[in-house]
């Protein structure tokens, strides 16, 4: 689960190799840009963004999610997140709720997959019950927020097809604009338009278009920081729903990488004792 940058996950290494060969195979680099279709160029940018974010191994962070409706009423969720990078599959992640108090101790375990549905379990502390849940519900809101589950799960190159739309300056940042079309029929979107800065291939902004192809939401990232000299993470992500006027702000604190998390930190036992 990424919860932040949209391009965090490693893709299958063989697939990456194939794509790299397909995209970069020609030795005539100078002619390549002209020869590429917008689809190929969109794919190339996405693969590059992905490749720059491989090797972070494991990560822990704390998020504060602030929900705000049109009338200005606020509701706050405090969430801790641990992720484990998988070499040949999507990430494993464990999400624990601290706030609101009535859901304190509720925890969520997810094994995301490049092919097929993710595996997800929910721990309900009052009953001490671990419940396997359907991962089809990706278009639904996460904890009543403006983030859908699919906005928070890790990005896989194979989950979209691409179209490069050109270059644009976004608030003074020289950016690529790439359209992403979800391949999953259960996605709530027809397309996402993504702005990535040219300097570091970091996602700066995403426009989400609903099933009727109307602009639904905009996600903006701010205050990027670099970790381990390589991995960029934003301290703040703001999702604005244009149709309802509601916003959700995600503030990240205490990002830690390579803290020594293991596969055994991501099973049903660890889900039950997650606090």
């Amino acid at each position, binding site marked *: 689960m990424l919860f932040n940058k949209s391009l965090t996950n490693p893709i299958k290494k063989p697939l990456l190799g194939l794509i790299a060969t397909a995209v970069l195979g020609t030795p005539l680099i100078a002619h390549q840009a002209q020869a590429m279709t917008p689809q190929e160029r969109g794919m190339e940018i996405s693969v590059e963004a992905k490749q720059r974010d491989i090797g972070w191994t494991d990560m822990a962070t704390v998020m504060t999610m602030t929900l705000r*409706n049109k009338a200005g009423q606020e509701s706050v969720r405090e969430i801790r997140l641990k992720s484990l990078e998988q070499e040949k599959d999507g990430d494993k992640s464990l999400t624990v709720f601290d706030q*609101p108090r*009535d859901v304190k101790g509720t925890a969520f375990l997810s094994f995301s997959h490049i092919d097929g549905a993710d595996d997800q379990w929910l721990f309900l502390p009052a009953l001490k019950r671990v419940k396997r849940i359907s991962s089809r519900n990706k278009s*639904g809101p996460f904890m009543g927020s403006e983030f859908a589950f699919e906005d928070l799960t890790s990005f896989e190159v194979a989950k979209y097809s691409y179209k490069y739309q050109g270059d644009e300056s976004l608030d003074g940042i020289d950016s690529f604009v790439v359209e992403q079309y979800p391949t999953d029929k259960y996605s709530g979107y027809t397309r996402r338009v993504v702005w990535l800065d040219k300097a570091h291939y970091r996602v700066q902004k995403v426009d989400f278009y609903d099933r009727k192809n109307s602009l639904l939401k905009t996600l903006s990232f701010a205050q990027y920081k670099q970790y381990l000299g390589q991995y960029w993470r934003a301290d703040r992500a703001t999702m604005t729903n244009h149709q309802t006027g509601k916003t959700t702000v995600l503030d990240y604190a205490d990002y830690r990488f390579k803290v020594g998390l293991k596969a055994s930190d991501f099973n*049903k036992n660890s889900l039950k004792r997650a606090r």
Partner: protein
Amino acid sequence: MKLFKTRIASPLVKVLASALVAAPVTAADDPQISGRIGYEARVFADDGIHAGQSGTGNSSLLVEPELYWQWNNGDDMLVFKTFLRWDEHDSQRSHGDIRELIWTHVADGWELTAGIGKVFWGVTEFQHLADVINQTDAVEDSDGEDKLGQQMISLSLVRDWGIVDLYLLPGFRERTFSGSDGRLRGPLVVDTDNVRYESSAGDKHLDAAVRWSHSLGDYDLGLHGFHGTNRDPVLTRQGNVLVPLYEQMDQLGIDVQATLGDWLWKFESIYRDSSSDSFTAAQGGFEYTLVGIMDSAMDLGLLLEYGWDSRGEDGTTGVQDDLFLGSRLTLNDMQSTELLAGIGQDLDHGGYSVLVEASRRLGNSWKLSLDARVFDSDDSLDPLFAIREDDLVQLTLERYF
């Protein structure tokens, strides 16, 4: 007056107390305190039909504080969770319990726990056949989902081929029952001061259990075995009270869930052998979720389950040939509003029960719940017959801290 019958047990408490004292020796994080405090109002549709029962209104207060402590970089943790309820009319429902007082040590590939704890097994929604470790705190609610803390030492082994949990359960907890002033009981009160056991060890019998569980693709599987004191008592009439007898039993069980897209297929089955009975029971069905109904953020879950018991109408169980239908509406809003409605229909006796559970968060720390229960039966053999006049509406306001 015995206002609070504190149901604690065993020397394990002492062991835990010493662990608690010993804990600060190593570097520990600050203990976290959390919990809830609440007020519950119940209104029954009718006066009680059994002698001594209270009238149509009932107030109750509850508090459930929890202390959590971890040290050794999170590899050791201690949970201490108590529960206390005061009930306006029923002295048996006014009770306290140590829900948890348990130490857990986590190592690579295994986990050891010791103390008083709670364990849930199973996958179905309307009945929990596989869930045998903890005794039911039956005065809390008629759904059987509230449990008393169980003394235990358990070892959990994590392997590639699944998780194996081994349990030693020293000591037994008696089920709670409504007192003479209480509603939701039969014509005869259960005499909880006059309990009998088949084992000469009484409530000190050392029970043992083992469970294997594993996730294989879309399937979550569990197998278990249990040897020890039957959590379900045999109730026999003695004068004008019922006396509970807790027999020894052996149980084997299976629980399976298949998570196939929007469909969750669930199945549980047990075989139980005791001196008075041996039987097989099963509960199975599905939960299907309609995501984003009517172009909204709301989800609607549809549930159907069927429960069967080989003892048929002779058994003491209320579920022997019963069909359950339910729907779960989740608003997915800021206040986490939820509504669950279900009906259980006894296909043999014609009796039915209806359950409605709605809840909504108020602000950041309050929660308001509205529950309703309807019971009906014309057949005196049906366990529902005794509580046919106990239809109720319950409003609960809780503050979480």
